[in-house]
């Protein structure tokens, strides 16, 4: 038969002293000799060989919870690009296809920006409305929140800017009266009721429809961008549930923010749109470019900070960030910000989220309290990370974690019960931050500013002697202190609940409260001790030289920097949030200080700490490997392990191959020439082998259990009655990376990081000795740092 002749032909290239080459076969084969890498189309005379060369569907995909092979994906992409380019000149249709291919990247990113902006607008509007639903309803138009309800009303006064007859609190609706202890209790009760029902709804939706929608999302996205696969994490249902339950979680008054989940939402959009274009849907490395751009769009719409979003994607989230990704992220952030701006329903008063209107200068001596705020931020960050990780670990391993719905309800109940009496915690956290950032001028009437009238003595607008001197500052201060303690404690238990939860706004709130307290203290100090040297130099009596709002800003940046350890992106986000360009230097000083102080207690930010808690295989590019171990200390098999599971290039039968696969759980197998020589041919992945065998048994006839499997170009010589051999050369990776056993581990870790490898083979004197996988490296690093090496879970 034809295939027997083909099988009997030895293959020509040097195979290390195998079969002898029958001289009469050479002329026939010589013209068709082609050295191919990984199964390119070798021209052949038989149609059967052609059939065997066509790509097997499913080969090249990855299992869930596995790491991708960056090198292979990049090679695939370059191959595809070459193919399209080579066909470009053939016809107009091919040219159009090549144009479409070149522009599909920009198209995906545009669609992602549009979708992110639209979803962020929806989340903003719905969250604002539902938040105010806890207080009351707007009778004339049910869809307005408190501020919008009183927008056109003329009954608002200078002192009470929120009161208008169209907005009815629940006590007013149910009991009929607005003031008094009865209505206070009724309001309290309705507040708790709504908070609990929103929280309960949120956790139920998450549990029933999309369990991956809980948490912040940024640790998992960091891991995905470094090459990990989590199927369903960026899917349609996760997107929908995350959007809906984020609104519910924010509205329930829990101490969380929207920013981390918005990054997740944007990445889901990016992932979904990338499936419309084969350039991105089939290639995992290209998809991650789109995801980097999408996360920039996410931060851009969360804060209204496009440049900060790009820098955030660069600094925090992405693993590889080539220049092309920078342009795409820039464009995505731009489109998303534009869409959000055009939806802008609340009027141009909300363009910049926490816009500060003052431009008073800051003085050199104020650097001391700014640095103190930086130290506070660093200390709080370190404390929060330790406490939150300890609590999450307890939730993970003990029976606290068995009742997620109950836990959410309990935390929401405690939060609501404690938050209602204090006006600073009752209101929306974003509103609190805005109030704290705003400086007290003549136009402000909040409780924080009441002491100003007392201080400023006989100025033009308050020289009415009948006005009582209110000690408003003291009640504001102790309420703020209580709010600070409350938020510090509750955020520890809230971050990591099984509802979408973000960390940015609570950290900024804590920092803003601390900063404002310090600012007010400094102000009082400057007022009552204006004859001290420091203040005499710079401050005049009666003039404001201290702006407490600035201290709140610096405190917010310091706390956020302490917990996430961001630097540049944080400063850019904060000055894009506030518009305070004069204050970049104090912000940088505070952020730098908080990073140094925080790093003194532990090098990880909150996201890296959660990655380590979950055991994701994330090889951090920021850490340096400083130990002097060699490759042979880390490679497997160790001396006590069974020998390395290898495949020989043409000795195995299908049955033996299946046996190897079923008995071991390795993800890939090196292919060697023969057991005696141990010389390396290539590397074959488990998933590819199983798919190829299944495919062969389905599509090709004559493949039996004792068919020979060969990875070479031509089948080995077989006796005449043996069944048809199975050629698996197309799934073999012919260029695996190897290091020698004496390579220092520093170089090996560097290779893994820079190339994005999954495994690396170790040779000794040219012979295959062992294998190092990414998991081995992570375990080794954990061991060197005296952590538990068994906590690395995935491959």
């Amino acid at each position, binding site marked *: 038969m034809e295939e027997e002749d083909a099988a009997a032909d030895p293959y020509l290239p040097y195979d290390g002293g195998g079969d002898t080459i029958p001289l009469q076969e050479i002329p026939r084969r010589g013209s068709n000799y082609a050295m191919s890498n990984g199964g390119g189309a070798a021209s052949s005379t038989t149609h059967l060989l052609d059939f065997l060369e066509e790509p097997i569907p499913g080969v090249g995909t990855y299992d869930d919870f596995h790491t991708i092979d960056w090198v292979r994906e990049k090679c695939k992409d370059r191959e595809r690009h070459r193919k399209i380019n080579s066909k470009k000149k053939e016809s107009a249709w091919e040219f159009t296809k090549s144009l479409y291919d070149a522009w599909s990247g920009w198209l995906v990113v545009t669609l992602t920006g549009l*979708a992110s902006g639209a979803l962020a607008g929806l989340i903003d509007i719905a969250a604002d409305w539902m938040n105010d639903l806890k207080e009351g309803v707007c009778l004339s138009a049910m869809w307005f929140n408190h501020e919008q309800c009183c927008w056109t009303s003329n009954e608002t006064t200078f002192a009470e800017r929120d009161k208008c007859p169209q907005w009815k609190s629940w006590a007013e609706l149910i009991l009929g009266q607005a003031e008094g202890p009865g209505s206070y209790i009724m309001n309290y009760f309705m507040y708790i009721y709504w908070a609990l029902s929103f929280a309960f709804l949120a956790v139920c939706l998450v549990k029933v429809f999309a369990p991956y929608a809980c*948490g912040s999302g940024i640790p998992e996205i960091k891991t995905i961008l470094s090459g990990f696969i989590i199927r369903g994490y960026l899917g349609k249902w996760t997107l929908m549930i995350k959007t809906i339950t984020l609104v519910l979680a924010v509205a329930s008054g829990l101490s969380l923010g929207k920013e981390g989940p918005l990054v997740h939402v944007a990445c889901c959009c990016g992932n979904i749109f990338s499936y419309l274009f084969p350039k991105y849907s089939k290639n995992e490395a290209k998809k991650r470019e789109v995801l980097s751009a999408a996360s920039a769009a996410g931060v851009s719409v969360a804060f209204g900070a496009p440049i900060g979003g790009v820098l955030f994607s660069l600094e925090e989230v992405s693993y590889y960030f080539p220049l092309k990704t920078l342009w795409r992220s820039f464009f995505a952030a731009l489109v998303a910000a534009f869409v959000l701006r055009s939806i802008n329903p609340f009027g141009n008063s909300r363009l910049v989220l926490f816009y500060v209107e003052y431009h008073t200068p800051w003085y050199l001596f104020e650097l001391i309290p700014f640095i103190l705020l930086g130290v506070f931020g660093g200390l709080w960050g370190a404390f929060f990370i330790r406490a939150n990780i300890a609590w999450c670990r307890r939730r993970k391993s003990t029976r606290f974690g068995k009742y997620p719905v109950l836990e959410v309800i309990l935390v929401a109940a405690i939060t609501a019960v404690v938050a209602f009496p204090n006006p600073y915690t009752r209101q929306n956290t974003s509103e609190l931050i805005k109030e704290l950032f705003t400086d007290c001028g003549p136009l402000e009437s909040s409780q924080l500013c009441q002491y100003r009238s007392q201080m400023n003595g006989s100025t033009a607008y308050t020289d009415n002697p009948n006005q009582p001197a209110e000690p408003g500052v003291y009640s504001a201060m102790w309420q703020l202190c209580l709010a600070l303690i409350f938020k510090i404690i509750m955020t520890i238990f809230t971050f990591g609940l099984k509802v979408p939860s973000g960390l940015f706004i609570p950290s900024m709130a804590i920092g803003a409260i601390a900063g404002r307290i310090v600012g007010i203290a400094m102000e009082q100090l400057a007022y009552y001790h204006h004859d001290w040297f420091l203040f005499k130099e710079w401050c005049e009596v009666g003039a404001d030289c201290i702006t407490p709002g600035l201290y709140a800003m610096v405190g917010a940046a310091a706390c956020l920097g302490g917990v996430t350890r961001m630097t540049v992106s944080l400063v850019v986000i904060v000055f894009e949030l506030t518009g305070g360009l004069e204050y970049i230097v104090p912000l940088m000083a505070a952020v730098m200080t908080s990073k140094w102080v925080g790093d003194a207690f532990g090098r990880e930010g909150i996201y890296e700490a959660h990655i380590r808690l979950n055991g994701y295989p994330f090889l951090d590019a920021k850490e340096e490997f400083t130990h002097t171990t060699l490759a042979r200390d880390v490679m497997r098999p160790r001396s006590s392990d069974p020998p390395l599971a290898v495949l020989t290039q043409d000795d195995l039968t299908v049955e033996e191959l299946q046996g190897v696969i079923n008995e071991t759980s390795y993800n890939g197998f090196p292919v060697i020439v023969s057991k005696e020589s141990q010389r390396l041919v290539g590397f074959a992945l488990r*998933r590819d082998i199983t798919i190829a065998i299944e495919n062969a048994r389905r599509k090709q006839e004559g493949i039996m259990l004792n068919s020979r499997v060969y990875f070479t170009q031509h089948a080995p010589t077989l006796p005449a009655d043996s069944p048809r051999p199975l050629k698996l050369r197309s799934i073999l990776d012919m260029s695996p990376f190897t290091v020698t056993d004496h390579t220092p581990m520093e170089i090996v870790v560097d290779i893994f990081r820079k190339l994005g490898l999954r495994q690396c083979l170790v040779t000794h004197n040219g012979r295959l000795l062992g294998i190092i996988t990414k998991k081995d490296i992570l375990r080794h690093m954990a061991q060197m740092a005296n952590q538990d090496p068994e906590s690395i879970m995935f491959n």
Partner: protein
Amino acid sequence: MKFLFGVEAFCLACFVLLSQVSAKNSEDIRCKCICPPYREVEGQIYKQNVSLKDCNCLHVVEPMPVDGKDVEAYCLRCECKYEERSSGTIKVTIIIYLSILGLLLLYMVYLTLLEPMLKRRLFGHSQLIQSDDDVVGDQQPFANAHNVLSHSHSRSNMLNKVEHAQQRWRRQVQEQRKSVFDRHVVLS
């Protein structure tokens, strides 16, 4: 579930378009002037639906609380800002959000309460309920390969297709729930 996603995408598109073409309601613009306390006059807030060119103290502050020569001093302290909003966008967004939330709640009630009850009534024994809980093997590499290759097979019937897709989705959610809530391997 692609249908639900399509509905959502359609709603989003409508929403974005609507926000562009929503007519400028006369009630949606205002000029807000905040005037701090001045001598005996208390602080006040004045609002009027005027356009940008008329948004200043003299047009908006009515009735003027001080007399002739003090008007300028009073107005200097006032700050007037022009604001506009889009109430149509807010209304449409809230309605879309509440309807999606309502649909999800109904579906959740159906999945958790009604469907097991219906199944129990129709089939009597618990065999079919158990088949949903079977874990499709990570342990069997060849079964997995089976899955990958069988995606290309076509179903005969539309209803069969929907049923099959729904079963696959529920298995996926079950797997996710196990990883997140039971074994705590992801997202802890």
